[in-house]
C-alpha cells in the first residue's frame, strides 16, 4: 500500500512537473514564437509583404488581360514565362496600335472593363488611349525595388513618358537611320547623314513615308528639327528618293540592290535580313541617331478587372527577368541597364557616349502632327 501510494504520488508529481515544464516550455515557447514572428515582421521589408499579398490575390484572380501591339513571338515568350513564374495566365490580345486602342476605348465607353494592361507603341498610348481617360496611375503599382530604383534605368529615372506618369517606356533601342547594300556602297560614304546627298545616289534612295506615323516620320523629325535642319530635308527631296509605304519591300529592294540606300528602314526587318545573310549594312552617322521604344511602352487601366494580377504583371515586365524575356523575343534593347545584350545586334545596342535623341515622350509626340505637315510640304510632290 505504501508502495502504491508512493507510486501514485510519484506519478502525480511527475505528471505535475511535466505539465509545469511543458507549460513552462509552452510559456517559454510562446514568447519565443511571438518573438520570432515579430522579428520576421520587423525584418521583412514592407514591399515584400505587399508583394506577397498581391501575388496571393493575383493567383486567385487567375489571369491578366493585356492588349498589345507586338509580335506573336513576344506574346508566346511572355505568356509562358509569366505562367511559369506565377501560375497566372496572361491573356494577350495583339493588334495594330490604332485598332487595339479603338477596341479598348469602345469597350470602356460602354462599361465593359475587359483589359488590365496596355503594352504597345508610345504614339498609341499617348495619343489615343490616354486622352480617352482609361489609364490609371501606374506609379502606385510599382512595388519591386529593382523596378523603382532609378539607377537601373538608362535615363537614371523611371522612364515615364508623360507628365502625369501614366505610361512607362521600357524599351530604348537605337535605330540606324541608314541601311545600304554593302556591295554597292561603303560605310565610309555615310560618315555624315549628308553623305546621301552625293549626286551618285540621285534616284537610288528609298525613304519610309515621312508624312505619316512610322519610322520615316521619326527620322524626318529627328534629322529635320534636331540633328540637322529642314534645308537638309529639302536637299534630300531634290535627290528624288522613292517614298515607301511597305517596310518589307523597302528592305527587300535595298537587299536586291534595286535601290541601294534605305533611309529609316524598319529595324526589325533589317535585323531579319541581316540574320538571313542578306548583303546589307547599317550605319549611324556622326550627327547621332534616335532611340525609340517601338512597342515597348506599358500602361495600367484604371478599371482593370484583375487589379492585382495587373500589378504583378507590370512589375514583372519591368523587372530584369521580364525585360530579358521581352528584349530577347523582340530583339530590342531594354531601357534597363542590367539586362543582357549578348543576343542583340551591335547596332541595336546603345553605346556609351553615343548621341541619342529620345523620341517617345509626350512633348515630342504631341508635336508630331505639325512635323507631318512640314514633311508633306517637302516630300509631298514626290508622292503625286
Amino acid at each position, binding site marked *: 500500500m505504501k508502495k502504491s501510494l508512493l507510486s501514485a504520488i510519484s506519478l502525480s508529481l511527475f505528471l505535475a512537473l511535466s505539465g509545469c515544464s511543458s507549460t513552462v516550455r509552452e510559456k517559454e515557447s510562446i514568447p519565443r514564437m511571438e518573438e520570432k514572428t515579430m522579428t520576421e515582421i520587423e525584418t521583412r521589408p514592407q514591399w515584400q509583404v505587399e508583394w506577397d499579398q498581391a501575388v496571393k490575390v493575383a493567383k486567385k484572380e487567375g489571369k491578366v488581360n493585356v492588349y498589345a501591339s507586338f509580335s506573336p513571338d513576344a506574346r508566346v515568350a511572355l505568356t509562358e514565362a509569366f505562367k511559369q513564374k506565377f501560375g497566372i495566365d496572361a491573356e494577350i490580345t495583339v493588334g495594330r496600335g490604332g485598332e487595339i486602342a479603338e477596341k479598348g476605348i*469602345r469597350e470602356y465607353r460602354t462599361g465593359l472593363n475587359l483589359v488590365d494592361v496596355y503594352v504597345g507603341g508610345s504614339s498609341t498610348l499617348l495619343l489615343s488611349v490616354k486622352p480617352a481617360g482609361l489609364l490609371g496611375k501606374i506609379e502606385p503599382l510599382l512595388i519591386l525595388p529593382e523596378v523603382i530604383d532609378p539607377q537601373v534605368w538608362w535615363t537614371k529615372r523611371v522612364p515615364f513618358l508623360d507628365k502625369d506618369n501614366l505610361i512607362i517606356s521600357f524599351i530604348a533601342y537605337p535605330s540606324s537611320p541608314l541601311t545600304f547594300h554593302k556591295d554597292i556602297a561603303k560605310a565610309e560614304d555615310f560618315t555624315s547623314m549628308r553623305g546621301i546627298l552625293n549626286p551618285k545616289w540621285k534616284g537610288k534612295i528609298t525613304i519610309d513615308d515621312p508624312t505619316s506615323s512610322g519610322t520615316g516620320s521619326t527620322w524626318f523629325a529627328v534629322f529635320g528639327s534636331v540633328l540637322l535642319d529642314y534645308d537638309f530635308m529639302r536637299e534630300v527631296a531634290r535627290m528624288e528618293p522613292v517614298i515607301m509605304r511597305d517596310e518589307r519591300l523597302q528592305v527587300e529592294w535595298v537587299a536586291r540592290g534595286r535601290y541601294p540606300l534605305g533611309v529609316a528602314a524598319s529595324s526589325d526587318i533589317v535585323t531579319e535580313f541581316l540574320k538571313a545573310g542578306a*548583303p546589307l549594312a547599317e550605319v549611324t552617322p556622326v550627327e547621332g541617331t534616335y532611340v525609340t521604344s517601338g512597342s515597348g511602352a506599358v500602361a495600367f487601366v484604371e478599371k482593370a478587372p484583375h487589379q492585382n494580377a495587373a500589378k504583378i504583371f507590370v512589375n514583372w515586365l519591368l523587372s530584369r527577368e521580364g525585360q530579358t524575356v521581352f528584349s530577347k523575343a523582340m530583339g530590342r534593347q531594354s531601357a534597363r541597364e542590367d539586362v543582357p545584350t549578348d543576343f542583340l545586334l551591335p547596332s541595336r545596342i546603345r553605346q556609351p557616349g553615343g548621341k541619342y535623341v529620345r523620341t517617345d515622350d509626350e512633348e515630342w509626340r504631341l508635336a508630331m502632327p505639325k512635323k507631318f505637315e512640314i514633311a508633306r510640304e517637302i516630300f509631298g510632290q514626290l508622292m503625286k
Partner: protein
Amino acid sequence: MRTPFQMSTLVMIILLSLLAFLTVYPLGMIFYGSFRSSAPGDPGFWTLNGYREAFSDPTIIKAFWTTMFIGIMRTAITMVTAVFICWIVIRTDTPFKDGFEFLFWIGFFLPALPMTMGWILLMDPDYGFINKLWKSLPFTTGPLMNIYSYAGIIWAHIGISTSIRVIMFAPAFRNMDASLEESARMSGESNLGALVKITFPLLIPAIMGATLLGFIRSLEAFEVELLLGMPAKIFVFATKVYDLLRWEPPKYPPAMALSMVFMIMVFLLVFLNRWVIGKREYTTVSGRGFLQRPIMLGKWKWATFTFCALYLAIFTFLPMTFLVIGTFMKISGLFNVPDPWSMRHWTAVLSDPLLLPSLKNSIIIGLAAGVLGSIFFSIISYVSVRTKLRGRMVVEFLSWLPWALPGILLALGLLWVFLGGIITLKFMYGTIYILILAMIITDIPVGTRIFSGTMVQLGKELEESSRVLGASWIRTFRSIVMPIMAPTFVAVGVITFLSAMRSIQTVVLLYSGKSRTLSILMLEHYIGLSPEKGMVIGVMITFIVIVVALAARKFGLKLGLRQ
C-alpha cells in the same frame, strides 16, 4: 387562324427589321460619324470638317478616277474571262472540266497579299524570274511586264477575281436548258453565236449581280494597290481612307466622309442592276424540267482544255507555288543569301500554343456561319425575287449594303453597334457568337447574289402548283424551293465557311483572347513583321480549303439545281 397573307407580312417585318439592324445600323453609325468631330460615342459636335479635310486633298480626284479606271478594266476583263470559262467547264464537253471547276474554287480562296508578293518575285522589272528569263532571250529589250504599273495591278487581281466570278456565275450556267441552245444551233447559229445571243442574255441577272459586286469590291481594294502602286505613284481612293485610319489617333471623321463615296456608288449600282434586269423573264427551269446536255466542241475541245489549263497554271499554280516555297525560306523570295532555306517559320507556327484553339474557333465559326448564313441568304433572295410582297425591293437593296464600305469601316460600324447601339449585344461581345453574326453580315451580298441568280431561273409553275394545293409561301419555300436548291445551299454554305476561315477585317475588332481565329493569328504575324509565318498560316488555310472543297465535291457538290 392566320391567313398566309398575315404570316407573310409578319415575316417581311421581321426580315426588314433584322436586315435594318444588321446592315443599315452599322452604316448609319458611319454616316453619322462623318458629320461629327470625333468617333461615335466620344464627346464631340456637329461639323463638316471631316468632309472638308477629306476632299481638300488635291490628289483625291485623281485617286478617284484611277480607282474607277482600274475597277472598270479589272471587272470587264474578269467578267468576259469568267463567262467564257464557265461556258467551257459547265456547258461543253471539254476534258477534265469538273477538275477545272474545282481548281477555280481553290483559286478563289488563295490569300491575296502573299499571292501578290509571289507576283513581285515573278514580274519585278529588274529581278523578277519571268522578266529575267524574258530579257535573256535575244529579241527582247525590256521586261515582259512591269508589275509596278496599272497593268501589273490589274494582272495581280485577275486570278482571284476571275475565280470569284466563275463560282458566282456557275449556278446560272448549270441551270441553262440545253434545248434553248440546241434550237439556236439547229437554226444555223454557231456554238459561240449561241453563247452570245442565247446563253448570255438569259444569264444577265447572275452575271450582272456578280459583276457589280466585284466592281464594288474593286473600288474598296487597297492592299495590292498599296504594294504595287506606291512605287509607280499610282494611288487609289481606298488608300486615302487607309491613310486616315493609320494616323495616331485615327482620323475617323474624314475617313468616314470619304467612304460616303462608296455608299453613293452602291446606291447607283443597285439601281442600275434593277434597271438592266427590269421585268424580263429569265426562266430556264420549269415544271417540265430542263435538259442538261453538254455542247460537243469536236476538236476545239482541246483548245478549250489548253486555255483552262494554261489559265490555272499561270494564275493559280504559279503564285501558289511561290507562296509555299516562300514559307521554307529564311526570307521569302530572297535567294541571294547563303543557305536561304529554313524550317523555322513552320516550327514557330506549329509550336504556338494558340494554333489549335484558333483553328477550332475558325472551324466552329465557319460551320455556324455557313449553315445559318445559307438559310438566311436564301430567305432574303426568295423574298426579293420570288415574291410580290411589299418591301421586297427594300430587302434586296439592304442586302447590298454590307459591301458599301471598306472592310475595316464596316468592322468599326459593327463594333459601335454591338457595344453601344440601341439594342446592344454586349453579352455576346468577346465570344465566337458575335463573330458568327459578323461573318453572316459580311457575306450577305455574296450569298444572296448567288441564290438570286439561281432562283430567277425557276419557273413560276413549280410554286404555283404548290399554292394551288393550299400551301403557304413559307411551306412552298420549305418543301419545293429548298429541295431543288439543295446543291446551291451546300455551295453557299461552303463559300461562307471558307470565307469565315480567312476573314480578317471583319473579326479584328470583335475578337477576344478566347475567340481568336486562324486568320487573326495570320494578321498577328504580319503585324509582327514576319510575313513568312503569316504565309505558313495562309498555306494551312489553303489546305483546309482544298480538303473541304474535295469533301463537298465527293458529296456531289455543284452550284446549281438538283435534277
